[in-house]
């Protein structure tokens, strides 16, 4: 029975003939049908907004009176606003802090936890747990932790140190947010690194040890090089993510104190939803796209190599 079916399948009509076309249409019909809903939705909710983003950066968007073409006015507004420069600086500072404070933490803990002989599972769960907590809970919780009469300042008090105004001092505000985000997010990065660390063949360490390599040498010459691709990929992912950061800055400090946590993405949000200037907000978004677009392609290429 199977054989006859295969035979039928392998006897195509001649190309160009009517049955051939019909046959091909029939053969591909469901393939297209299955694609149609996704194509429609991707166009409606991805490509149209992206295209409109380009278009509206040259318009004044007004929901009541309709949009008017203004040429490069939005870009001019954006580029002459002194806040843009502040926001770019703050964003770069935020990205730098996230690298210095947060980037190495998951790598170090992944290597350390892989060496635990016992309780590895419990430690993993504990490290990941903050990542599960909703962001709004995080904000409420850390506002209390950072409070002048909260537990961190209480600890500093018992140690005899001065109190730290975590959220109200402009020197501390961004750093405090980075600490909070590192606390929440390092667990997920740690698990990714941990999977990679555990996939390194144990024999390599065995061989290195027999050759007389010490513990540090083994980490430096075996563990870290094995993680290299992943580290680069995670670095790019983090840069892409932090360059667009605005939510904790908005929720906890609203860009303050003194605009020290006003990031570029937050400025876009403020232009759109505080000043209701959607045109300039879109223009700022386009500028961001031009700068960040290249990074996305780089990430894709590296991710492909990694797989």
């Amino acid at each position, binding site marked *: 029975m199977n054989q006859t079916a295969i035979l039928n399948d392998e006897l195509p009509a001649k190309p160009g003939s009517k049955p051939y076309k019909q046959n091909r249409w029939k053969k591909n019909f469901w393939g297209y049908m299955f694609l149609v809903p996704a194509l429609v939705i991707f166009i409606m909710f991805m490509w149209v907004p992206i295209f409109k983003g380009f278009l509206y950066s040259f318009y004044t968007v007004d929901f009541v009176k309709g949009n008017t073409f203004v040429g490069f006015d939005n870009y001019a507004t954006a580029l002459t606003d002194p806040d843009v420069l502040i926001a770019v600086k703050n964003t770069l500072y935020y990205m730098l802090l996230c690298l210095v404070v947060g980037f190495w933490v998951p790598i170090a803990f992944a290597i350390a936890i892989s060496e635990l002989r016992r309780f590895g599972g419990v430690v993993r769960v*504990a490290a990941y747990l903050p990542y599960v907590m*909703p*962001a709004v809970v995080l904000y409420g919780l850390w506002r209390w932790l950072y409070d002048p009469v909260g537990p961190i300042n209480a600890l500093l008090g018992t140690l005899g140190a001065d109190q730290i105004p975590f959220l109200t001092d402009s020197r501390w505000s961004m750093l405090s947010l980075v600490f909070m985000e590192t606390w929440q997010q390092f667990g997920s990065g740690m698990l990714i690194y941990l999977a990679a660390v555990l996939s390194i063949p144990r024999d390599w360490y065995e061989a290195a040890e027999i050759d007389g390599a010490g513990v540090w040498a083994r980490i430096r010459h075996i563990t870290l090089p094995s993680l290299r691709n992943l580290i680069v990929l995670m670095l790019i992912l983090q840069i892409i993510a932090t360059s667009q950061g605005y939510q904790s800055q908005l929720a906890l400090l609203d860009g303050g104190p003194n605009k020290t946590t006003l990031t570029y993405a937050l400025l876009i949000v403020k232009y759109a939803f505080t000043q209701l200037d959607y045109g300039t907000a879109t223009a700022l978004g386009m500028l961001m796209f031009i700068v960040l677009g290249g990074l996305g392609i780089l990430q894709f290429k590296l991710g492909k190599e990694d797989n």
Partner: protein
Amino acid sequence: MKSAERGILSEHDLKKTSNKVVYGLMVFFIAIMVFTMMYPILMTMFNGLKSNQEVNSFPPHFFPQEWHFSNLKDAVNYIDLLMFLKNTLYIFVGNMVVTLVVLGMASFSISRMNVPYRKAFYFFFLMTLFIPATSYMIPNFVNLKELGLLNQYAAFWLPAGANTFFFLLLKNFFDGIHPEIFEAARIDGASEPRSFFSIAVPLSVPIFATLAIFIFSTAWNDWFWPSLVMHTEDKYTLATAIYKYVINVKALNTNIKFAILFLVSLPPILVFLIFQKFIMRGVTLSAVKG
């Protein structure tokens, strides 16, 4: 000791004093890390069960001196948590259905069906990954407004089908199913939709579970976007409502505030503890998300 059971350190290394010290320090740092992770989470719970006076006392206590379980009741009554919960679940279920139907069919089509120009279609979906989401956030909002979708659940459900990351997850999963299964179905006379619904879908339960967890956590955690799209109180999601009525409100007693925060973080924590294995596996997949 078998070579498979060693790590970077071997049993032999641990006999050296210097290594012992390093190992001890490492365990110490891990212990501090675990404490730093657990203390704030447990504090959220215990603060929610203290009297308001005790929460605000300085220095803070860890365990409540008196347990005030009535705080939980006050928390539920302070804002209509159940209504916000219902809205959140509504969005979650709708997003899940749209994702599975729209992206499931599209990824199956690209992965296992006859489609000319398959590469072009694939690239059409993939291209969106290169564009940073924040750069078209505002036009996205304007677009929803122009479509008349603001303040409607459809504003979440429909765009849920435009998720490239989930598309890739599904496609990779279907790529991993042996094509012979579908060949056999075809030969036995199954139509294409039939081989999708009766063969591919039942085989895909693990990836659907992973997606369900991702979609749940997005629906549960996202506070900013829903606060823009939904502008009447009866449509707010839980996270948005907490942001608007709890986080930035000074008049609310701190213990009740924490009781609410505790209640809201409880479901995701439980989901995590129950489906730990699924999630730990899913995390590694999310490395491509960005």
